[in-house]
């Protein structure tokens, strides 16, 4: 790991900053996991998040069941096990970064259809989540699941699939494909000769267009892997990826500071791992300390904010409920990825988020509740831990009086769960 970049918070993390870092990286705050970061500097904290905790036997079981459901094409079960990864993973940060890559490439299990192939892509992205951009692009942009996702299983020389070019230019490079028609055509031609049949990629050289193409700083008879390498070194692409990472892990509501953008781009341009880019993004002092830099929680984050600290287990019911709320964990609905930011701040969506929390608290075993929530609410310091778990920062003055009254009068578990719902109803809860 290289020394801290200028602009990254140089000190050690206190409880508030550690909680913020954890919430941004993993989508939740569990007190024990937060306390593990207190006293570390940003680099050490991110390294700890990347390393994760020791995996238990239950984790191996989730992994095995995920494989079985992928092999058998059981989408409902697979969806639940993917959610289980986020709720129970010893490396939740890696799972979040994997989701980011799936969001960037907008790969959906429903569009790919062949679940085994989708799983192969998802697992590969997880494995490479913190690697260099080149490694991630070389894997994802040549994967057969990407072609199925773009409805381009057959790439004949005579019929280059323009949608591949349009997708990459618009969502990976971050340009208007209408203004980059030549680039769109060149990328589409680079993919000719690639065919996905019976879940396997076949490259037929005689169907490949050997003509000259230009992508980034590369010119020649480029193929898909050349496109991936060229884009991993391309300024515009790197800037787009950094902006998307900033939006995913920090906020979409406030523009990325120029100095941060330049620093993160340089790290990526040097071919250094994405882990270092993330250290800069998550540890940037201005963004870490300034409360303006908060993102609107997605339904997934609302779920995780309660599920992970209170020991819930993911279930098909929970995964389906999230899908109904617009956050299907295996299906970014459009090629732009999952909705983000203000899209989750409509009055009806906020009401549905609160309903989700209430259902989780009152729901039975179909929501995967365990005895951990009872234990958490039985502690003498339950009320202060709840605030730290669910909110980023202190309660507002208006809410504090109501909260204190509620907490003082909450004698049994039902009343304490009502207190959890109260916190979830606050505007502060909607921001991470």
């Amino acid at each position: 790991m290289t020394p801290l970049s200028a602009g990254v918070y140089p000190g050690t993390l206190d409880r508030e900053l550690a909680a913020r870092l954890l919430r941004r990286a993993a989508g939740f705050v569990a007190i024990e996991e937060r306390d593990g970061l207190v006293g570390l500097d940003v680099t050490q904290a991110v390294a700890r998040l990347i390393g994760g905790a020791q995996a238990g036997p239950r984790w191996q079981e989730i992994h095995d069941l995920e494989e079985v459901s992928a092999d058998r094409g059981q989408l409902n079960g697979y969806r639940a096990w993917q959610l289980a990864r986020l709720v129970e993973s010893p490396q939740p940060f890696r799972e979040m970064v994997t989701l980011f890559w799936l969001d960037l490439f907008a790969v959906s299990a429903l569009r790919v259809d062949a679940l085994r192939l989708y799983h192969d892509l998802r697992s590969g992205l997880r494995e490479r989540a913190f690697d260099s951009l080149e490694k991630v692009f070389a894997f994802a942009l040549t994967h057969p699941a990407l072609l199925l996702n773009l409805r381009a299983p057959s790439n004949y020389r005579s019929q280059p699939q323009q949608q591949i070019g349009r997708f990459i230019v618009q969502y990976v490079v971050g340009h208007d494909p209408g203004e980059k028609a030549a680039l769109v055509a060149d990328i589409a031609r680079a993919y000719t000769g690639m065919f996905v049949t019976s879940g396997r990629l076949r490259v037929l050289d005689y169907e490949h267009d050997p003509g000259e193409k230009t992508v980034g700083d590369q010119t020649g008879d480029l193929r898909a892997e050349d496109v991936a390498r060229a884009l991993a070194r391309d300024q515009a692409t790197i800037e787009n990826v950094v902006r998307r990472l900033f939006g995913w892990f920090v906020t979409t509501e406030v523009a990325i500071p120029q100095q941060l953008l330049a620093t993160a781009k340089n790290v990526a341009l040097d071919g250094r791992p994405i882990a270092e880019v993330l250290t800069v993004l998550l540890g940037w002092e201005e963004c870490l300390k300034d409360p303006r830099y908060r993102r609107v929680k997605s339904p997934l984050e609302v779920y995780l904010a309660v599920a992970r600290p209170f020991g819930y287990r993911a279930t098909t019911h929970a995964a389906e409920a999230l899908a109904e709320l617009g956050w299907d964990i295996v299906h970014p609905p459009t090629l732009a990825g999952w909705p983000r930011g203000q899209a989750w701040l409509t009055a009806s969506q906020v009401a549905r988020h609160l309903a989700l929390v209430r259902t989780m608290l009152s729901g039975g075993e179909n929501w995967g509740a365990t005895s951990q929530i009872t234990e958490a609410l039985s502690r003498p310091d339950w009320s202060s831990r709840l605030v730290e778990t669910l909110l980023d920062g202190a309660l507002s003055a208006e809410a504090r009086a109501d909260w204190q009254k509620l907490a003082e009068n909450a004698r049994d578990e039902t009343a304490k769960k009502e207190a959890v719902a109260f916190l979830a109803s606050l505007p502060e809860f909607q921001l991470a």
Partner: protein
Amino acid sequence: MRGFKSLLLVSVVGLVIECWPGRSLAAGIDSAAAWVPQNAPAALVVKNPASLIEQWEKSPLRQAVANNPGFQAVLNNPGIKQADALVGLVEVHTKKDRWTLLKQALGGGLFVAALPQGEVVVIAEAQDGKVLRDVHEFLLGLAKLDAENKGQPDRVKSADYRGVTAWTFGGDEVHAIVENRLILVNKPELMKQIIDRIQDSHGGSLRDNPKFTAAEKATADHNLVLYLDLETLRALPNVQKGLEQSRQPLPILLLAGTITALQKAPWLAVGLSIEGSRVTGTLQTGEVAQWPEPLAFALAPGKDGALPPIHVPGTVFTASFYRNLRDFYAQKNELFPERTSGLIFFENMMGIFFTGRNFTEEVLAELEPYVRVVVAEQRYSPEIGTPAVQLPAMAVVFRMKNPKKFQPVVEEGFQKALGLINFVRGQDAKPGMILDRPVYKGVKYTLAYFNPDPDGDKEHADIRFNFSPVLACRDRDLILSTAEPLAKDILDALAEQEAAVQNVHKAVTTHLELLGTQIVRLLEVNKGALIAQNMAEKGHSRERAETELSQLLMVLRMLNEFRLTESFHNHSNRWDFQLELIKP
């Protein structure tokens, strides 16, 4: 809470109350109907509870239920725990276990009736009185002590009305002992009415209600009888709404008779008896004067009725129906006017498979009203291997009116359907099926199958190998099966049925049989998948998922066979069922 405790005490009294010695009621619990107002819309009569209690006490099912985590959670409810403690006190006081107490308290019978304004009356007839008088006094003492401790000494009180003493332990609950019967009501006024009825013996009781007497007659052979006055219950808004909602094609096709009966019949009676390991029951409705024309497709005219069901090796479920499909579909606008997406899809598909033909008049009209369904365990060839998820095979057997004319029509439709499936699978780059026309015992049939995967895992083959669809025609019988082995078994079974005399079951419109042992086998072969499903659905650990499945299997292993028939006699609808349990 106070009201709950009072009811609890009274319930315990109800279990253990003593009768007055030497004044037994020879007529049995049925005669309690003379004490209940005529307008009671619901009544439950248990004629010989002692036998039921004895059966339940010995039943292995009781142990299975007791071990169920859900049931154990109910037992942990504070109210239930309190009741259990109270029963424990009574056990200590009487030096008798709870089963003996239950038998002595309810041995004479139990009569429960609900009245239109929410009143409820419970009449329990005791067998033995010696210890139970002490028990009543004991519980009365406990109730008084409890009331005094809470500073409510007036809560437990008694009053005399026409020579009968009635007590209350609090709230609206009132109980009295008349002869060897405990009468418990939830409204004091009702107790007065009942005592008046006992003393004056005038008419106007449930006994004088012709609907109740007809229901009693229909279920005379049974130990447990439930009576419902449908005319009164139908007026309830929720019941009305529920009946109006039953307008989906499949429920109407399968339950047309029952739906009509619930909508039109004056009463409904359910009778239940348990003898050893056999549970038998009857559900009968009163006469429906005028059967609605659109639902006539489910009535068997004259001496007609369903054919005998088909049995093949490994049968899980077999059913035989008498349904005039042409009449059913011709009335679709009346029966299920809503154009659901499912119905539109079905009609589109039928339009493709039977191009240029009217589905009602040229397809369904070609079928006799005999429909048989068989679900059976699968058999797999060694070349294919065993699928990771084993689905049972299913077949439907229709009877054609004009086989020569209709067979080519249905053959064309079947092949079109297979072609369409192959086309769609091809679009998704999935393996397609190969069509063949093999011969089995002189019957040439159409078969579609998936080529074995030479590199595939034979022990965990793909789910598609559960399917090898077949269309076979044997004389007038038309077989549509999801798997070839089942189709062959059905051809054998039909040949055997033909060899024997094959008579229709007169007036029977539905005949179902379900074999518990085969269901257990199916669940056992799919145990791994079911455990994974449980873990995904409920977030359970593997151990807990395995325990839940084991408990389910334990209960199912006790179910041997379930048979059910629906028939129509004298304009009334009747269901008879029989459940055979495996003796432990």
